[in-house]
């Protein structure tokens, strides 16, 4: 008898004549339950989401860095606002929250010079999460190309 483990409850349900669905184990930095709530088990689409995110990541990150280097606070806030939801779509909820906090700080100060430490932190966070997204994209691609 084949058993099926539900994603949410871990209760065992015997499902006659069904094959065990493929499960992808996400990097622990990603909120797998949240990703499931958005995409269910459509791993091909999740791969596409990660691919699209990577396609635009550098441009959005460069806009952020440029705004800081040029000391344009309004552009800095806009840049972090734009990139922020990307991390929700990729299950990186902590990063999304960190972006929100940085965005709030942008709204609270009068100059980019007041954000030197915070900018360094968010820049390092984004560099790190890009590696996570890249690595998950590669793993998803391999997972989806493997029929079993």
């Amino acid at each position, binding site marked *: 008898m084949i058993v099926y483990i539900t994603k949410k409850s871990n209760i065992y349900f015997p499902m006659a004549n069904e094959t065990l669905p493929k499960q992808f184990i996400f990097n622990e930095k990603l909120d797998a339950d949240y990703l499931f709530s*958005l995409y269910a088990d459509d791993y091909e*689409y999740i791969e596409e989401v990660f691919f*699209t995110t990577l396609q635009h990541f550098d441009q959005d990150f460069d806009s952020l860095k440029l705004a800081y280097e040029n000391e344009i606070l309004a552009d800095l806030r*806009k840049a972090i606002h*734009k990139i922020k*939801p990307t991390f929700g*779509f990729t299950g990186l909820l902590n990063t999304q929250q960190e972006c929100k906090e940085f965005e709030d700080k942008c709204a609270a100060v009068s100059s980019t010079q007041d954000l030197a430490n915070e900018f360094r932190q968010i820049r390092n966070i984004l560099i790190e999460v890009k590696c996570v997204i890249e690595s998950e994209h590669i793993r998803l691609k391999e997972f989806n190309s493997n029929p079993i």
Partner: protein
Amino acid sequence: MSLSCIIVEDLQVAADYLNRCCEKSGQLNVQGLFANVNDALQYLNTTSVDLLFLDVEMPGATGFDLLDQIAYTPKVILTTSKPEYAYDAFEYNVSDFLKKPFTYQRFLDALKKVSQPVSQTTDTVTETGIDHIFIKSDGKLIRLNNSDILYIESMGDYVKFVTMEKKYVTHNTIKNLEEKVSKLDFMKVHRSYIININKISNIRESGLYINGTEIPISKSHKQDVLKRLNII
């Protein structure tokens, strides 16, 4: 039911996700995806749609700028990652507000609000005479003389009738009321306001004044307002 819609969103991954939700619903015909307000406006100037999925912060102009400039009023679902815009969304009478990212179920809930038949909100105002209307407020049918009404203001799914003495809130929409009162001395001057043209005290660049209250006039309605006035 199939509604025509467009998606105005500068974040590609969000636009793709929204497009996917639309396709999955089987209720929407996505006519275009636009990454900025200007491109969307160009399209909307030549083609009308039933529904807009609209981000707020985009390069060059905001989603609210777009709403100020379009000449008609499609249903609008705002999509943003910033809940602080909820108040503005309310002011612009949008159907719903989706905080990115959102689940498919939440998307369907928003779609339900858009799909509610107009008949659900049409029984709160009854045009019973040429000089008065009846509105349902506080569980009663209340007679309002047209000459007593200063203006009508949108409050999301409700509208506020403002008279010299009192304000009455009733479940209705500006869009629905516009059809009912357009034969009377009323006209829509903004997506959130219908005014009694006999009550205008003066008009300035920023808007018109009724009993000391400034009412905004949208660009698309300004010419119509001026035409209706007895300008010598």
